[in-house]
């Protein structure tokens, strides 16, 4: 198992380097690139990021474990991030969560997604699905599964 950045990503990294005073700033951008390229962040990828950013691998690893949106293991099923924070809870997030239990998806209880005014909300593949109802969840999942 080894990792190398795609040519396209290497070009993106080179362009970004010009925009920051230190290559160290590219830690999060590189982690994102890896995650979009591979679906998760392997230890080999961490070594590759270390090379690009001049940050020791351990420090990259620490960063990857700090932010909840980075994943260090492969994720197989459809990932459904459901907001469980206050406004969503007040607007029925618990019902949505309960309904999702029966589906063949991985449910992630996440904190506030910034959709309090359009609660309840879930996020799938970077897209927000707002003002959820059971019926709406059904049709969204039907399309995605």
């Amino acid at each position, binding site marked *: 198992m080894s990792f190398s950045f795609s040519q396209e990503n290497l070009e993106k990294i080179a362009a970004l380097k010009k925009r920051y005073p230190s290559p160290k700033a590219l830690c999060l951008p590189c982690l994102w690139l890896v995650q979009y390229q591979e679906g998760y962040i392997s230890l080999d990828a961490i070594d590759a990021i270390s090379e690009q950013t001049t940050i020791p691998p351990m420090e990259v690893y620490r960063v990857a474990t700090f932010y909840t949106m980075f994943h260090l293991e492969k994720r197989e099923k459809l990932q459904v991030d459901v907001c*469980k924070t206050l406004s969503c809870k007040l607007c029925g997030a618990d019902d949505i969560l309960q309904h999702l239990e029966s589906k063949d998806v991985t449910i992630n209880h996440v904190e506030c997604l*910034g959709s*309090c*005014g359009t609660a309840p909300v879930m996020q799938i593949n970077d897209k927000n699905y707002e003002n959820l109802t059971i019926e709406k969840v059904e049709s969204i999942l039907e399309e995605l599964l």
Partner: protein
Amino acid sequence: MRECKIVSKKFHLPNSHTLSVARKNGGYEALEKLKEYSPTQIVAIIKASGLRGKGGGGASAGEKWELMPQNSEKPSFLVVNCDESEPGTFKDRQIISYDPHLLIEGIIITCYAIKAKQAYIYIRGEYKEYQDILQGAIDEAYGAGLLNACDITIHRGAGAYICGEKSALLESLEGKRGHPRLKPKQKEPEWYFGNPTLVNNVETIASVPFIVQNGAEAYRAFGTQKSPGTLLFAMSGHINTPGVYEAEFGTNMLEYIEQYGGGVKNGKKLKAVIPGGVSCGVLTAKECEGLTLDYEALRAVGSTLGTGGMIVMDADTSMPEVLKNILEFYHEESCGQCTPCREGSGWSDKIMKRVLDGEGSKEDLEKLFELADTMNGKTICVFAPSISIVLLSFLTKFRKEFEALVL
């Protein structure tokens, strides 16, 4: 209540995120003023306007800008805080999706004033959809030659509430974990890789074009003496028409809720309001009576205005459950650096769970008070003190509901 639209003027227009719509509706016109004013004059105008940071703290923007050196050997940077993660807050998101060019215009002016050549917009990872809209607008601005004097780079976060704290944000922007930094001993700018840096919230920067174009007095014509101007107040929770509606500081809270929010959902009675994101102390319906939406009024009732994102709760809401929900949030989001916060956030959450499970005791409630004290003012940043405020406000104002659970 008068309508006042400083930041949200173009929100309702179709395709308001595009350069052509922005330009047709006065976008980028404030840039003309840069021919007239020197950088220090712009700083002076911002200071005179009384513009206060709209990310939650409410500090004077002008005073912050004044800390930026005008003759620095090192490069200066502008960082726009779009890490909007405070539960109940979703206003900056409206700006970047409905009027991103207003933000870009504000950035161009601010960079001119503080002599920065590079601006970063640190955006929370969960806002990818809106980030794409903003990036589209930036690309358009580059195409139109608007970004010749400064570069704008979007920097995406990845799920960490604490990165909304400016020093944690800078750590994150430097490629590190989002740990807040020890506070400086004197007034000074922020530092990004050792370079002087200004960090401002999206809405703060988006307010700049209006002020520069119309003058400080035009801005002061809205709001109160000490809280001039407007804020993108917002409502969520048990409300008929939740959303973001700009209003001037000093607006009556209940009138606002009634007029824009259409009142409490299902015709129920109001029980409580968390005024500006969960980190502000909760207010009872009675405390909300006659209350105005400005920094001073909220402080006077022992809470804070925060981001102005109000969470409205009806009479049937269980306050212990609400508190538990908020404590879970803090437990999940503590960066883990300082002992009182790392351990206190988890412990209070666990105690509250026990209380809700019917296994709590009176001692548990006392322990929560004690924890509130230990977490207050003893950590690097204000995360733990926020937990304190939340704990104390819920436990004292709705004491009976909690005591009923431990009988």
